[in-house]
């Protein structure tokens, strides 16, 4: 255990030299490393696989089967920041994505490198109305992007509802531009954490079934899926439900509320300003709620995104 005086001197010098050095450091809670962030847009399973009829909570209760043949969304304006600092991550780029044909692991729309390895507790994104210049990420085609920009859509989908012998097709695009912010996981943990020397995968998740809900969910999704209104609103019974038919379809009869029916229309505003509440108003309201986070996490602060 003998330590020479020279060794002791070295130890003292090392200790007291390190102490002020450490005092000047930022300390252990602050980011001392760097990592990467991948923003990956993931479609909810209902987009590629559709919805099944059945009695389960996840099924369409009134017997309709929903399939999508095309499902495009506009997404962009990615933002992340930290409550404890002024750092920001921004990408104003707007992308058009074909969610029906999305890669199995989703679309990597953006990667940020050299990001402080700590928790970024504020994250948000937008599903804006498409404008010319929106980028198409493969396998999304440029034609898809142009199509969305021409219509100014934030979401467009084509598909069919089938029940027994009835198959009713739909092709709808909506300018339902909405920003989603203060995103948190389903556990309530805000934002995301960047690992040191690693990559965090942040997943804005796009849902594809909200227009079949029986209410506009906020917070916990306590709802049912129903699609009978598709047949109710197909007034001309041509098996093609158009937006015009949706606008003419009275919500009071197509979407009956309690005590006579399952729906809840509170909060559905007159979206198209025609002085009536139609099913179009309902579907458009739902089209403004598609953005979730890390699966079923919520982004509770929503605002119009033109």
């Amino acid at each position: 255990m003998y330590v020479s005086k020279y060794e002791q001197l070295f130890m003292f010098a090392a200790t007291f030299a390190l102490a002020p050095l450490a005092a000047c450091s930022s300390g252990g809670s602050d980011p001392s490393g760097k990592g990467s962030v991948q923003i990956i847009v993931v479609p909810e399973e209902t987009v590629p696989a559709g919805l099944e009829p059945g009695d389960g909570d996840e099924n369409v209760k009134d017997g309709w089967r929903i399939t999508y043949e095309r499902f495009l969304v506009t997404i962009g304006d990615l933002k992340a920041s930290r409550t404890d600092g002024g750092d920001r991550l921004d990408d104003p780029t707007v992308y058009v994505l074909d969610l029906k044909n999305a890669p199995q692991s989703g679309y990597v729309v953006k990667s940020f490198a050299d990001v402080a390895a700590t928790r970024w507790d504020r994250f948000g994104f937008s599903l804006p109305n498409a404008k010319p210049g929106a980028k198409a990420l493969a396998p999304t085609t440029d034609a898809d992007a142009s199509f969305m920009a021409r219509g100014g859509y934030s979401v467009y989908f084509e598909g069919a509802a089938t029940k027994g012998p009835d198959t009713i097709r739909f092709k709808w695009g909506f300018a339902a531009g909405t920003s989603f912010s203060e995103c948190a996981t389903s556990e309530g943990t805000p934002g995301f954490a960047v690992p040191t020397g690693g990559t965090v995968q942040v997943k804005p998740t796009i849902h594809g079934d909200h227009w079949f809900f029986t209410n506009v969910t906020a917070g916990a999704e306590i709802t049912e899926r129903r699609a009978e209104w598709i047949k109710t609103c197909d007034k001309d019974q041509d098996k093609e439900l158009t937006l015009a038919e949706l606008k003419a379809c009275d919500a009071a009869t197509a979407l009956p509320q309690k005590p006579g029916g399952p729906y809840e229309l509170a909060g559905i505003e007159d979206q198209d300003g025609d002085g009536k509440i139609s099913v179009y108003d309902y579907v458009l309201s739902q089209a403004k709620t598609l953005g979730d986070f890390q699966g079923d996490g919520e982004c509770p602060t929503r605002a119009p995104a033109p």
Partner: protein
Amino acid sequence: MSARTLRSALVALALVSGAARAGAQPPDASTRPPAVRTRVEPSLPDGPRPAGRVELAVLVEASGEVSEVSVVASAGADIDRAVVDAVRKWVFEPATRDGQPVRSRIRVPFVIAARTAVPLAPPVSPTRQAARPPLAAKAPVPAQKRPAPPASPADAKADADVAPDEERESGGEPQVEEVEVAGVARKPSRAASDFRLDTSILGAAPRANAGDMLASAPGVYVAKPEGDAVAHRIYLRGFDADHGQDVELRVSGIPLNQSSHVHGQGYADLGIIVPEVVRRLRVVEGVYDPRQGDFAVAGSAEFDLGVEERGLLLKYGRGSFATDRFLAIWAPRGQAAETFGAVSVRSTDGFGPGLRGGLSGATNVQYKLRLGRAEHLLLHAAAYGARANVAGVLRRDDVSAGKVDFYSAYADPSARAQSAAASRVQVGVSFERRLAEQARVEAAVWFAQSDFRSRLNYTGYTQRSRIEPAWVGRGDLIEQSNADTTFGARASYRSPRPRILGLLRGQLEVGSEAKTSGIDQAQNLLRAPQNETWDQRVDAAARVTDIGVFADGLLSYKRLARLRGGLRADALFFDVDDRLGNFIPSFQKKTHIVGFRRTAAGVAWGPRATLELEPTRWLLGTVSYGEGFRSPQARQLEEGEQAPFAKVKSYEAGVTVNDEGLASGSVAVYETRLSYDLAFDPQEGRLERIGPTTRRGVVGVLRGKPTPFLDGMLSATFVDATLDSPPPPTPENPTPPYVSGQSLPYVPPLVLRQDVALHGRVFSLFDKDVTGRLGWGTTFLSPRPLPYGQSSAAVFLVDALASVRRDVVELSLEATNLLDTRWAQTELAYVSNWDPTGVPSRLPSRHLTAGPPRALLLSLTLHL
């Protein structure tokens, strides 16, 4: 102005400027040898006898009685026997350290004259003792033989845990009297707020458990709102440390804080400590010592166990609310104070109408094994178990409206189904070897296993099932379970203390501490009275490993200045099996198998430094700085996340004035900044993250011991604790009830504490002295801020005890809350619904947990 007048003036100045303290280096840190109070002359054999010399080794107990006598130098068997018989009847004023009677071993030489025996140099009388210079007034050396001054007074002060053996070898004129006072090394002070509480203060007021002892430390308030089986809530100098999240707690060197406990990060149950075997409590308020590890955010507290009065102690008490307590302590004579066995059992119906009944028991066993002259092993084992019913919270508006009695509980089935149970077993072995030139090697290993289960309802009927969202209104009876198995080890080496560059002395200690915990935890919602599970919130296992290293250096310049400090770094590794991770909501398509396993790691490090300036023996200035950390709750980490430690920075400056042992005072100002804080979330029954916080305050302590029979301590702590920025809104909490700059909820800005102990001989009865003890502790808490602009009422409490003892029999009466104050242990503000038939309010409302009313405990103790 004389030096003494100046000293007195400075003590007064310290008091006026902020308060006073009896803190880090009180004058009674000195050691005093025993002094003879009653002497019996030896009755030597008749007849002629040669002159000679007898030298006895005498063991004087803390009570002043002689327990062992052995002959070191003989003058013949008959003479030896006569002298030994006489000395066995001697009664001493016991030796003291830090003002506290301790066991001591002395040598008493006798010169045998031709016809009589005369002590050559008997131990000094108390009067003589007071008249002469204090034998070791400035040398808090744990064991001291030959009271020759150490190499320099500065060294003695700065290096309080120096081995005595080396000093004895260092020379000094041989003394006739030789005194060895048993005890443990005193660790050097790290700040003006490095407080050492001895049994005199700890024993002044009744302590139902070891956690209550913390209340005597300045700025500390402890409560037990969740019943006897749930750990204390600790509030320390502006921190709501909950059940230990911000206070590192150790007993005999073994950490008690549990990582990632489901009921609260850093959960630590002090129930495992039998309070009667605590001989010293060190509370460091702040983070200044490189040995302070995880959870040392507000500070740390270490319980040192030992029994000074040897023999067998049996105590039985019976008191209010059908409380029974049995205590047995066996401290075999001839063994070190650290060697003992203790067991306590307590059962009670609890206050209120049969709502708080509980049974608890603990055992502490230690054995100090000397391996050689400079080595020893300390074996430690402790176990604890408790179960208690819990009355739970009450809405203050319901109490005011007479809907429920203050000391009762809601009649609701869910409210009446609350309970908790806990157990813990721990064993440890520590080794210490003292080397030449004050060097030292220490090592320890320990193991602990603990279990916790609670059923607590804070909110009544507000929750909705996450598994089955249609289920609602079945009662928010939160069931939590946590099982933890932890292994730990530590080792350190302290270098010799050479001179450097002539005037300076230096020393370095390096050490490492590691522990690994396997944790299994769950949280569910139960429906009473069916005991049906109606939601699952947590189902997880985790392994948390903490590897800490530290370097701690000392540079001292004579006795004038000392700089201590160094670095500590902890690497933490987390492996989480979150069995409810990637949860699939009921209304979502099943696309995967529920579960999420992840790992994370991180390093927390920071410097700690203390500068002490001591221009005179009675004035000490201290400046301290340190950075500490709290590890994150494992389950809240994401894959690969750099563990987000809560980092604290502590600053403190203080002045301590000693008035030659009569009184000491100190005042210190401090600031602590915490990178993120946690607050209790009643909806989840656990801690949730809030924003960064800052605390600024002043603490003052006065310790006075004007006579041998009076000891007192008074402290005042004021803190301004504020939230620097609110947390971001989340879906579950979109409107955090905190705004920037607001007072931190739940912590009292002002805490006053007074402990007073009186003890001494009362009268004689049948040739035996009857001694008495009288003591009390008072606590004042200013109104505590609550969320939403509310605040709780101020609290003033008095606990007191009185006892009389004759020989082996002692009768004592303890009273807690003597004034029968109706007070709330904790007050919280949040939303609840305890009226299933009414219109539920969703405004935050004040909730309280009733503090115990006056309780008496009459005990009979046998000291055998």
